[in-house]
C-alpha cells in the first residue's frame, strides 16, 4: 500500500481528533497508508514565526518537511493553513540564499532540507491519487438528495504558483465539489463560493469584523442554496462554521438554524459506514439528525448491486 506522511498540525489532533480519526479510518480502506510524522510541530502558523522572520518561518517549516524526507514520503495535511504555510516555505526555499541560510539553522539540530518531499492536501490525495471511482466503490451509504454547500478555503487556492496541485480555476474550485458529488449528494453553487470565511488572523484580531465577513458568506449559502449541510476541507473553516453559526444565531444576526458542518473526511467516513462517535462527534451544532439521515437504512447501498 502506498504510504504518505500524515502531517496533523495543531487544531486537528488537539481540538478535533474526530477529524484525525476519520483520516485514519478511511485512507487505509482507500489504499493509502498514512504514516505518522513523529515530532512534527506547528507549520508554523501565520501569526507566529511568519509574522516575525522569514528565515525562521522557513526553518521551522522545513524541520517538519525533513521528518517526511527522512521517511521518504510526501506530506499530506488536512489543514489549509498548514498546507499554505508549508507550500509557501517550500517555494521560498527554492531561492538558493534562503535555502543556504535555513540549512545553516537546521544544521544546529542535525537536519538538512533537501526538497524531496512534496506537500499535498487531504483533498488532493483523495481526488487525484485515490480517485473518485475508488471512493465510490467504498461507499456504504448514498447521499442522493442531500444538498451540500462546499467551502474549499483560501489556502489551497492562492497563490496558485506555489502549490503542487492547482485547481483548474481557483476562483471556481471543483475538487471538493466533485469529491462531494461522488457520494450522490447535490452540490449547489453559491456566489461567495471562493470567499474567505473570516477565520484566522482576522478572527483573533477583530472578532466582529470576522463575524461580519462570515455572515455574508453564510447568507450567500443559505439564500442561494438552502443547503442541508456544509462540507469543507479546511480545518480552520470548519471551526468558523461550527463555532460562529451558533453565535450569530444566539445574537439574532441570523434567523435560521445553524447548518450542520462537516470536514469532508467526516462525511466520507460516515458514508463509508464508520461510527459517528469516532469520526464525527465533536461539534457545537447538533449534527445528530443529519448523521442519522446519512446513515439511515434507506440510504444503505446493498452489497453486490
Amino acid at each position, binding site marked *: 500500500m502506498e504510504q504518505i506522511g500524515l502531517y496533523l498540525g495543531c487544531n486537528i489532533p488537539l481540538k478535533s481528533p474526530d477529524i484525525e480519526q476519520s483520516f485514519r479510518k478511511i485512507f487505509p480502506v482507500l489504499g493509502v497508508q498514512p504514516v505518522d510524522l513523529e515530532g512534527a510541530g506547528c507549520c508554523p502558523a501565520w501569526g507566529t514565526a511568519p509574522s516575525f522572520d522569514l528565515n525562521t518561518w522557513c526553518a521551522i517549516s522545513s524541520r517538519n518537511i525533513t521528518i517526511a524526507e527522512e521517511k521518504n514520503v510526501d506530506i499530506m495535511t488536512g489543514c489549509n493553513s498548514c498546507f499554505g504555510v508549508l507550500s509557501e516555505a517550500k517555494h521560498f526555499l527554492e531561492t538558493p540564499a534562503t535555502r543556504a541560510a535555513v540549512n545553516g539553522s537546521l544544521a544546529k539540530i542535525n537536519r538538512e532540507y533537501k526538497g524531496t518531499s512534496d506537500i499535498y492536501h487531504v483533498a488532493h490525495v483523495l481526488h487525484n491519487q485515490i480517485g473518485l471511482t475508488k471512493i465510490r466503490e467504498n461507499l456504504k451509504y448514498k447521499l442522493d438528495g442531500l444538498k451540500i454547500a462546499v467551502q474549499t478555503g483560501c489556502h489551497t487556492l492562492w497563490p496558485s504558483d506555489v502549490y503542487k496541485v492547482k485547481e483548474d480555476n481557483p*476562483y471556481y474550485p471543483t475538487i471538493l465539489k466533485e469529491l462531494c458529488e461522488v457520494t450522490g449528494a447535490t452540490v449547489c453553487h453559491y*456566489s461567495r463560493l471562493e470567499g474567505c470565511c473570516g477565520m484566522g488572523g482576522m478572527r483573533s484580531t477583530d472578532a466582529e469584523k470576522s463575524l461580519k465577513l462570515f455572515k455574508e458568506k453564510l447568507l450567500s449559502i443559505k439564500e442561494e442554496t438552502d443547503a442541508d449541510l456544509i462540507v469543507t476541507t479546511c480545518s480552520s473553516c470548519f471551526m468558523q462554521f461550527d463555532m460562529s453559526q451558533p453565535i450569530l444565531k444566539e445574537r439574532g444576526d441570523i434567523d435560521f438554524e445553524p447548518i450542520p458542518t462537516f470536514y469532508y473526511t467526516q462525511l466520507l467516513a460516515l458514508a463509508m459506514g464508520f461510527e459517528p462517535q469516532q469520526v464525527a462527534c465533536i461539534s457545537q451544532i447538533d449534527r445528530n439528525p443529519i448523521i442519522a439521515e446519512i446513515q439511515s437504512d434507506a440510504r444503505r447501498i446493498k452489497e453486490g448491486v
Partner: protein
Amino acid sequence: MAKVGVYVCHCGSNIAGVIDVSAVRDFAELLPDVVIARKDLFMCSDSGQEMVKQDVRDGLVDRVVVAACTPRTHEPIFRAAIEKAGLNKYLFEMANIRDQASWVHGNDHDGATEKAKLVVASAVGKARHLQPLHDKFVDVTNAALVIGAGIGGISAALELANMGHKTYLVEKEPSIGGIMAQLDKTFPTNDCSACILTPMMVQAFNHPNIETLAYSEVADVDGYIGNFNVKVRQKQTYIDWKKCTGCGDCADKCPSKTPDLFNGGLSDRRAAYIMFPQAVPKKAVVDIEHCINCAGRTIGTQPKINEKTGKAILAPCERACRAGAIDRSLPLDPGGTIKEIEVGSIVVATGYQVMDKGWFKEMAPASPNVITALQLERLISATGPTGGKLLRPSDNEKPHTLTFVSCVGSRDVNFHTHCSRFCCMYMIKQARLLKEKYPYLVINMHFIDVRSAGKAYDEYYTGAREMGINFFRGKVGGLEMLPGDQLRVLAYDIEAGQSIEYSSDLVILATAVELPPDAIALAQKLGLQFCGNDFFRELHPKLGPVETAVAGLFIAGCCQGPKDIPDTVSQAKGAAAAAAVPLAQGRVKIEATISEVDSQKCSGCGICEPLCPYHAISMRDYTDRARGVIERHAIIEMSSCKGCGVCTSACPSAAIKLHGYEDEQIYAQIAALTA
C-alpha cells in the same frame, strides 16, 4: 605602395587649444607610407578642402587621412571632396582628435597630444590598407504590397495607388474592412463606423491601381528592397466569385450553423456565408470546415442521380444559386492557388485581436453575461445579432446595471505589460451611446486611470461624467456568478479607500489588444522583429516609426502597437509615403561597405547563414571550375546586407570580407595603437 596624405585640423582653438597640432603633424610625417602631412585652421573650410583636393589632383597622395572632428558628421564632406578631385571616396579615413581627444582631455594637453598621435597613426595604418569601393544600384519594381485590409491597410493602399503605384491589397478574410467594420460608432465624434469606412472600402476595391486579393494570405516573401518576390495564397472560396452576385441565397438555404465570429460568436452564421452586409467584395464563400456536405455533396465528387427524374441531386446551396456560381464537383483544393507578385516595397498592416475572456479566470468567464467590448460593439450595432437592441446574451432581457472593466490583460505582467491605449476611450464611447439610448441604465465604469490623450478626447470623457455615468478608480478584482445570471462585481474605489460590491446584469471586459497568432508566422516570413513578445518592431521608436529593420518593409496600425483609428490612418499614410520613396526613385543604392564571400575560399560550412539578421546569406551551389566540382557555398545578397560584419568575424574559412572593415585594416590599427 600607398601614398598617404595626413591633414591635421586646428578647428580654430577647439583642437589646437589643447593639442599640439604641429607635433602631431611632425609625428604623422614620419609614419610609414605618409608622403605629405599638413595642417590647417579649418580643414572643413573651402580652403582646407581645396588643399586636399589639390594634393589629390597633383597625384601626390592616393589615400587621405584627416585628423579633425568625428567621421559621424564630417566623413561625408571629405569623401565628397576627394571624389570631386578624382579619388575614390572610400580611400579616406578620419582621425577623431576633437570630440574624442581635445574636448575631453582639456585638462591634460600632453596626454591629449600623445593620444592624438596614436589615433592618427591608427588612421594611417588603416588608410594604407584601404581599397577603392563602389556603391551599387538596383532597379526597383514599381509596385507595392499592402498586407492587411483594415482601415490602416486600406488607407495605405489608397495613398500608394493615388501616387500612381500599382498596389496589391491582401486580406485574409473574405471581405476587406478589418475590425473597424465590426464597430458601431467611433469616438470622439460618434460617427457611424460603417458610414465612414464603407466608402473607403469601395474606393479601394474599385481603384484602377489597386488589385485586391481578398481571402488570401502571404505564403512566402523572398528578395529585398526594390525587388520582393511574394507568393500569395488565394484560399479556395468554393464559390465562383466571377459568377457570385452576393445575393446571399446560398446562405439562406445552407443548414449548417457555426458561431459568427464577425458578431463575436454572439450569433450563428451558415457554412455558406457572406461575411457581413456591407462586405467588399460582396461575395459568398463556403466555410469548408463547417460544411456538412448536404446530399452527400462532398466537394470534388459528382452528384448522385435521382433514379426517378434522372436529374442530379444537388446540395441546397447549389440549387439556391441562381448565378450558377456553386458547383461542388470542382476539386477540393484547401491549399488554394498561389499567385506570385513582384513588388518594390511592402506595407504590413495586419492589425490586432482582442484577448478572449477565457484567459481571465477571475472574471467568471463561464457566464454568458460577461462579454468583451468588441462583442458589445456587435450587440449595439444595427447589423448585429440583436439588430442594435441591448439585450443580455443569457436570456435576451434588457439589462439594467452595466459594468465596464478596463485593463483586462493589459498592464498586467501575467499577460501583456503594455497599455492597450484605446480601451478607455471606446468604453466611454460605448457607455455614452448606451446612456443616450437607454437613460435608465446604471453604468459603472472601473479604471486604473482614464487615459484620454487625444484631440477632443478628454472633453469626451468629462462629458460622460455629466451624462450620469459612474466612474471608479480601481481595478476590478473579480466577478462572482449570482443566481439569475447576474454578476457580483468585486471592485474597489481608490479615492474612497473602500471596497465596492454590487450586482450587475452585464459586464464588459476591455481585454488586451495583442497580435493575432498568425502574425508571428508572417513576421518570420518577412524578417520582422518583435518588441519583447508584443507587436512588430519599428526601426526607431521615434525617428523611424513606420520603417523596419528590413529595408523596403514598412509597418502601420495596430500591428506596430495599439492605436486608435486616427493614429492608424496617420501612420498608414506615413508608411505609404515611406514605401513610395524607393518606387519613386526607381532604383535603390546599395552601400559599398557590405560583406562579400570569396567563393574560392568558402568551405560551405554554413556557420554564417543563421547569423545574418537580414537573411542575406544563403547557401547556393557553385561550380568550382579549378577543382571541377559543384559545391555548396555561401552567397551574400548585397541588397539585403547591411554591413554589420557579424558573419565576417564568424567565418572560419576567412572567406567573408567586410569592405571598409577588413581584418588587415583593423590589425594595422591595433598595431599602431600598441606601438
